[in-house]
């Protein structure tokens, strides 16, 4: 066969067919009803085979219809610095062309980096343990909600703060609708989750947990003083959705005495790439580990006493428990877990701190200069890190259009009609000048 992915020569095919007592490849489909057999006179509605050069040209054509913008937006995807080492190491074929480490003896590479990932997520979030990763932050949050119900007895309702990022809330709602989970939104006051509102809901006695964001959809760093105590008094769980990058600077879910932490690892240097692939994480206190969904790697020894790593606590999982499993998830986002593990190894405590310093410095510079234009006013007077919302006197569509014309993506409109901006360590003083110049022309 004259195609580079198929090694079979005509001779090979004939020899193999003979061995199994068949005459043609079609004989291999003798068990398929004639009515549904896709015979040679039928054809998929697909283009003819592309050579590599033609594939490159096709992608160049597609790329030319995409525009690389200067990103002053967040809302779930952040333009952070990506060290050059990472894509290089991720292409090691022993990592990328392997599957789930079922055969531990020849998968110690995968098992070790997952163990490192779990360790780093646990220490960053201040939790005892973590699973091997989730699909993304939004599905990790949905799984956290289900986990809260599984971990508490006779509780039927989960509270979700009104300040949760919108895309995360939407995914939670979808899962909740079909699983039959009762979700109650707790109000915010002055842009932060209201402890009073939480306490009022807790009084009913049917609450399994509360999910609230460490940095919320307005960019505000929430103050969870009193939250964990209020939850634990009612034997309910406190769950925090967190940006893991920011946790080098701000108080961690563990320091707030949360029971579960979840979030999206995209902020740990993963390219935005139009929304994926990213990686979610789910970490918890040790007492809840047997309710964790997904893969978990543990340390052990081999028969010779050598240190080794293995998939463990599998009694929670679908291939053993089927419909009684803690979740239907049967994979993780392994290669992206490797991505953030290498990222965190390179950045270390100082690098991650510096990323936050620069994002904070740039965001506050932009905030002050936007206010100084006289066209923006503060919405909330609360501490923020790299993302913030403002009121504006400008028509938002005109504002966005003018920025786009200058190759800038920013001023996203929130549900409430505010505009949001985000500044990461990748933004320069010249880029902020350019953004302010555009606004001054309006």
């Amino acid at each position, binding site marked *: 066969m004259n195609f580079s992915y198929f090694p079979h020569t005509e001779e090979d095919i004939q020899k193999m067919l003979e061995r199994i007592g068949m005459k043609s490849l079609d004989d291999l489909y003798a068990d398929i009803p004639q009515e549904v057999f896709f015979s040679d006179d039928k054809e998929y509605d697909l283009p003819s085979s592309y050579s590599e050069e033609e594939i490159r040209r096709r992608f160049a054509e597609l790329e030319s219809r995409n525009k690389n913008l200067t990103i002053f937006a967040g809302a779930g995807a952040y333009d952070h610095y990506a060290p050059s080492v990472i894509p290089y190491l991720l292409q090691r074929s022993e990592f990328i062309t392997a599957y789930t480490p079922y055969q531990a003896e020849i998968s110690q590479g995968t098992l070790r980096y997952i163990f*490192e990932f779990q360790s780093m997520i646990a*220490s960053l979030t201040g939790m005892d343990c973590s699973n091997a990763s989730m699909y993304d932050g939004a599905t990790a949050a949905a799984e956290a909600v289900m986990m809260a119900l599984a971990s508490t007895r006779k509780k039927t309702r989960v509270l979700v703060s009104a300040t949760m990022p919108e895309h995360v809330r939407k995914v939670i709602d979808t899962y909740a609708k079909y699983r039959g989970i009762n979700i109650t939104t707790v109000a915010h006051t002055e842009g932060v989750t209201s402890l009073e509102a939480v306490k009022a809901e807790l009084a009913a006695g049917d609450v399994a947990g509360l999910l609230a964001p460490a940095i919320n959809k307005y960019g505000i760093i929430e103050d969870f003083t009193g939250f964990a105590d209020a939850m634990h008094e009612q034997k309910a769980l406190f769950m925090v959705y967190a940006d893991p990058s920011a946790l080098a600077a701000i108080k961690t879910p563990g320091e707030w005495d949360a029971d579960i932490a979840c979030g999206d690892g995209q902020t740990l240097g993963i390219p935005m790439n139009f929304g994926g692939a990213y990686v979610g994480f789910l970490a918890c206190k040790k007492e809840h580990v047997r309710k964790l969904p997904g893969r978990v790697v543990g340390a052990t020894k081999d028969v010779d006493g050598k240190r080794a790593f293995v998939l463990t606590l599998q009694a929670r999982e679908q291939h053993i428990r089927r419909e009684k499993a803690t979740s239907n*998830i049967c994979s993780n986002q392994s290669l992206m877990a490797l991505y953030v593990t290498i990222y965190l190894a390179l950045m270390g405590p100082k690098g991650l701190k510096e990323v936050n310093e620069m994002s904070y410095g740039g965001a506050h510079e932009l905030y002050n200069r936007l206010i100084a234009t006289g066209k923006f006013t503060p919405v909330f007077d609360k501490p923020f890190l790299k993302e913030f919302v403002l009121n504006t006197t400008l028509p938002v569509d005109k504002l966005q259009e003018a920025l786009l014309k200058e190759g800038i993506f920013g001023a996203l409109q929130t549900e409430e009609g505010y505009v949001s901006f985000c500044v990461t360590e990748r933004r320069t003083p010249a880029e902020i000048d350019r953004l302010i110049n555009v606004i001054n022309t309006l």
Partner: protein
Amino acid sequence: MKYYDRLIFELSKEGRTGYSLPRNPWKQSTNDIPAELQRTTDTGLPQVDELGVVRHYTNLSNMNFGVDTGFYPLGSCTMKYNPKINEEMAGLNGFKNLHPLQPAETAQGALELYYELNRSLATITGMAECTLNPFAGAHGELTGLMIMRQYHLLRGDLKRTKVIVPDSAHGTNPASAAVCGLDVVEVKSRPDGTIDIESLRSVLDDTIAGIMMTNPNTLGLFETRILEIAKMVHECGGLLYYDGANMNPLLGRCRPGDMGFDILHLNLHKTFSTPHGGGGPGAGAVGVAAHLTEYLPNPRVIRTADGRYEAVTGKDAIGQVSGFLGNYSVLQRAYTYILALGKEYIRYAGPLATLNANYIKEELKGDYKLPIDTLCKHEFVFDGLADTSTGVTTLDIAKRLLDYGYHAPTIYFPLLFHQSIMIEPTETESLETIDSFIAIMKKIAEEARTMPDELKTAPHNTPVRRLDETTAAKTPILTYTELKNQAE
């Protein structure tokens, strides 16, 4: 493979760094964050230089086995070759820097790729439209079942809360059904793993939302009575869900849509050659028949009358199952693969995979017990060795294969047999590779008779040998901190 016993934390030394950031040009500092909102504990992250990090992960990779290392006949996982041009196309800067929320007019190329891949998958499966948003096969199953429920809910047919799952199904099927709030009705398989039509008939009533089927099933056998099954389920008002884990042999020869399936998921990391990545990221595209397109999750990518592409939301949609448009970089790879195959070569992927499987089955069926001796599709299942007198188990055979430089097949699944060995060679393996594998499998069968102890203690040549899994589960050590505490 060489044993390398370090963890990144053990390379750490105070004062080392592996990053390179520009000088901080700003005046304001995180010190201004109120003290009660600042982190006070250590991050616990290691401090390692760049080469230290590169060597560490290179050494780790040397303890791993991938498709590029050698033959990987892992049943139901379709470990085919992952073309390198896919990687090149997934790394392009014109996609990498796109923010998922940037306006459609600045991401027309990205949206067009999504749309074109969607159309391609629809024609390959015979469905009307797909969503590419689900992140994995199991996530696709969940999305597909949500669509099934939405269809019944919006028709006001609220009684349909049960879904039929054959006992031979992948474990994710019943687990996905449970997450979707459906009760599982298990139907028994006949001895050959196909569905027992009479026992199916007996459970069909107006509480059935639908049936989940894998075709070919997990024994690699085609459900020949599929048209009859489709008719029965549709007549009772249910929908048919196709688990696309085993779609590979049908590529080019048979379309689930033509068989009567209403909903399906595809594993792009299996059938469409995107790398498995050590367990992800994958992609679980979901396709539906024309009467279900309005329920596809948000956002959907459409082509407008004037040829532009847009991401839109629908009022009858099940909602969002992902933050954005799924594992987009995986979609870039799958699209590349379909372009490379084109309509000419995609027709051969299924037949060649099926040819390879049948050839291995015929060659080995004397040495290994073949419970169902019939034409298979892309994979088949042995029930251990033909000669059971040696006491050598499927686990021993699997571990011995590692010694000879092969990945093991899927073992102890499906649950229909006690000693299942599920072999799936895929179409990208040559006759020479397959003949070598057959020779080794025969050698192992011989070794089971002549030196069984060597097999029961295998593997011998791997970086580590059999592991103590019981202690790992009983006293779980899940982080470096716990590992250190245990040592002290």
